Structures are given as C-alpha cells and as structure tokens.
C-alpha cells in the first residue's frame, strides 16, 4: 500500500516536501491511523502526528486524507484511493509534519463561551430539563473539536481571526439552544457584526467532512433564525 505524506520540520527544512512510503501486508480492514503507526514504528520514527483514543472520540488525529479532512482512526484504508495522500489540516500553521497549531481554533472556541451561563442561584440538586428540551441539543453537543470542519471552511481560511468558524458556531448554537442557559440574548448580541457569524456563505464543506456526522451549517441557520425572531 502506497502513501505520500506531507513532511515539514521547520527546524531542519527550508520548505515542506512530500515523502513516499510503502507498506506490505496491510489488513484491508485496518484504519489509516494503524497504517501511520506502522510507518512510524517500522520505517520512520521522525514522522509526527497527533493521536490518542484511536476510535473517533478524542478528535486528535484530524488530517487531510486524499484532499478531504477526516479522522485517521475511523477512516478505513480500503476506502482510499492509492497512493494515499496525507497532509495536515489546511488553513492553520504547521508545527511539524501533520501537527498543526490549533491556537486560533481554540481561541474562536473560547470566544463563544462554551459553558452554561446561569445567573439564578444554583438549585440544590440539578438544573433539570424535559426530554424534549434535552432532545433539542442532539446534533449539537456531540462535537469532538477535531477541527476538520473549520479547517475545511473557505471563510475560515480567509478570515481565521475574525470568523468564528463552524466548530465554534456549532458550540454557540449548542448553548443558545440549551433551555438552562440564561445568557441567550448576550450570546446572540455577541455574534452580531459582519465577521463572527455572517462570513458563513453556506458552502457546507463542514457538513461534508464532519466525522461525527454533524451539521454545523444547520446550526448556524438556527442561530440566524433566532436572531431574526429576536429582532422582530
């Protein structure tokens, strides 16, 4: 099985290059992460990439696989055309090989205050929700922050410091929709302006690549709908 992998070590290399690898006897049911770990173990220990849980829960092995962002640990090698071309997620600075600097991504994530804001005194037991209120959060809370969506979004490439990006906006929607949150007005107000939310042009790359099958475009639409309703 053939691989072409983006390599770049800023301490040694003047510019990035592509390195070819070949693996024998790859189990057709294997995931890409397993193949990458084999390359690292058997052929080149300098190859760098992030990984942790290995089963699509932690979101750390996001990479660009044959031109499409995805998680290596849940992408079957059998589904990929050879040579398998692997690059870091686009649009963010490369630290080394497939490892990107996610500071900008997390900065945008923090900007939406991704936590419940409750002004009333906290109840002794818990903040309860009806099953319907809880159901309203389905499709919003499952995000693993792998950054596959935001780094596939042209609007995020163009204005990564101003446009919040699909991942952060999905989180914004998750708390705007939460029946327990008491800062919805402020959250909507904070998203006003031409950049934070309204750079989204419904390109829907985010929907195509989300490894959890989520729909950030729909979530962004829900925020816009809330804003319109609120302004009427």
């Amino acid at each position, binding site marked *: 099985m053939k691989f072409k992998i983006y390599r770049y070590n800023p301490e040694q290399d003047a510019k990035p290059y592509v390195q070819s690898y070949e693996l024998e006897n790859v189990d057709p049911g294997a995931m890409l992460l397993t193949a990458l770990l084999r390359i690292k173990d058997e052929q080149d220990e300098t190859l760098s990439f992030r990984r942790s849980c290995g089963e699509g829960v932690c979101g750390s092995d996001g990479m660009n696989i044959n031109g499409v962002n995805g998680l290596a640990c849940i992408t079957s090698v059998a589904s990929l055309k050879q040579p398998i071309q692997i690059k870091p997620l686009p649009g963010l600075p490369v630290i080394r090989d497939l490892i990107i600097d996610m500071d900008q991504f997390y900065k945008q994530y923090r900007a939406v205050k991704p936590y419940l804001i409750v002004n009333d005194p906290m109840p002794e037991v818990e903040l309860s929700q009806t099953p319907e209120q809880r159901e309203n959060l389905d499709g919003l809370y499952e995000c693993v922050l792998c950054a596959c969506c935001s780094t596939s979004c042209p*609007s995020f490439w163009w204005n990564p410091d101003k446009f919040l990006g699909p991942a952060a906006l999905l989180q914004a929607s998750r708390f705007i929709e939460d029946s327990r949150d008491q800062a919805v007005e402020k959250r909507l107000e904070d998203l006003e302006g031409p950049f*934070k939310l*309204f750079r989204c042009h419904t390109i829907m790359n985010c929907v195509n690549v989300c490894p959890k099958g989520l729909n950030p475009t729909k979530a962004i639409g829900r925020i*816009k709908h809330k804003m319109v309703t609120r302004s009427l």
Partner: protein
Amino acid sequence: MSLYVLEGLRPWVIQRVSAVYIVVFILYAVFCFYSADTIAYESWKNWLYNPFNTTVVGIFVIALLFHAWIGMRDVVLDYVHNIMLRIFILAMLLGALIGSGLWVFRILLLSAVG
C-alpha cells in the same frame, strides 16, 4: 455608522428579501415585455408613466442597489485584507452604486413628468 455599512444580521436579511423582490419583479417585467403590443421607446415610456410601474421599478432599483452592495461588500470582506485597500474599494463601490441609483431615479423622474 461603521465602515461595514449595515453590519451583520440586517444585510443578511436585506439580501434575502431583496433577492425575492428582484425575482418577482423580473417575472413581472418579462410578462409585460411579452404582452406588450409594440416594443418601442414610446411604449416603454408609456409603461413607465403608469404610477404602479414607476413604483415597482423604483423599488426594484433600490432592492438591486442594496443587493449589489451587500454582495460586493461580502466579496471584499472575504478577500481584501489590507484595511486601506478595503476602504478604498468599498468607497468606490458605494460611489458607483449611489451614482447609478441617482441616474436611474433621474430617468424615472423624467418619465413620470412625461
């Protein structure tokens, strides 16, 4: 008023509402064009002299100008990152659109006068 005239939600809504109006107007204009007895300057002038048509054309021009402004503004905000160049392009665009609008309203006014 901010540099990015109209800001976030408002232009987004205006863009959609104006798009709907533009489509409806174009359908009406095409219908009038094909149902006209003669296609000539005089018949066009008579058509425009009708107060209903003057009004719908006037609203169409306003909708088109807003739609064009928001669309072009979005392109500039996406692609032009140098702030001075952005201001320059937006100012030129605003000038061109306001100029075009005034020109159209001069034509409408003259046609309304007869």
